């Protein structure tokens, strides 16, 4: 029963839409003539230029080059790591859990 109602509903909707806007031959002919006239005056857009395709090998070479440059920069120019290693360790003095005097090395980043 429910399926029948659904089918009737679908049929009603489809039928009311199909007969809603029929195109007459005269209307179509006039529209066609008008379209061709307007299209003759209109310029066509050119095709879009495709983006330059890059090969995967070229991409890998580029990435490898970037990493190498960064590594060389770290070794030769950036001295912060060397400076940090050269500094004497900082000592932190405190009483430990047994009440004894102790000290520890604190690792601090630059």
């Amino acid at each position: 029963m429910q399926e029948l109602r659904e089918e009737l509903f679908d049929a009603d909707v489809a039928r009311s839409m199909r007969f809603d806007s029929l195109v007459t031959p005269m209307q179509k002919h006039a529209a066609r003539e008008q379209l061709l006239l307007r299209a003759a005056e209109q310029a066509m857009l050119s095709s879009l230029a495709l983006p330059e395709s890059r090969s995967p090998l070229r991409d890998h070479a580029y990435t490898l080059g970037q990493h190498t440059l960064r590594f060389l920069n770290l070794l030769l120019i950036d001295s912060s790591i060397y400076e940090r290693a050269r500094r004497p360790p900082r000592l932190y003095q405190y009483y430990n859990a047994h009440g004894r005097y102790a000290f520890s090395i604190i690792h601090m980043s630059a």
Partner: protein
Amino acid sequence: MNLIDEEFSDADLIERLRASDLDALGALFDRYYSQVYRTAAAITRDNAVAEDIAQDCFLKLHQYAHRIDVSLPLAPWLYRVTVNLSYTWISRRQKRRVSLEALVDHLMSPAGHAPDQLAENSEVQQHVRQAISELPFNQRVVIVLHYLSSLNLEEIADILDCPVGTVKSRLYYARENLRRRLDESHRISEVAHGYAGIT
């Protein structure tokens, strides 16, 4: 040479159109005008506007001929342009804030005036059309593409560029809305004819 013949695929005709062959545009027009026009008319409920939208749609086909992917079917592209143009028209009309009276007149008026159409304009169909025209745009488009153009959910999703689940949900809510509105109008009609309360 008759370009309307089925031996010319849409892709062939677009290739010819790219070479500035307007007969190819005419052939594509003959092939798809009815679908485009009826879709626009069903969405906008205005035949004059539907004619303009169909014109613009085929002018865009001419303008963008070089940018259309001929490996894909043309119909979804045309439907997409039609829906977008209809949406633009409807949103502009809403901005113009037409008076309530004019809107009611517009919704109540039949879309066509040909004698064969008038014969088909039964009361039920009139109610259905009015109920469809009152649906939100997204739901109306799905209903039009599903019932008028007989497209399946995947095709509609492709045209609207949204997931199939979204189309499914819009169709569900559109049908529920339609059913509710039709029930209401049926009840009003019964009251008007004095059938209410008769069991």
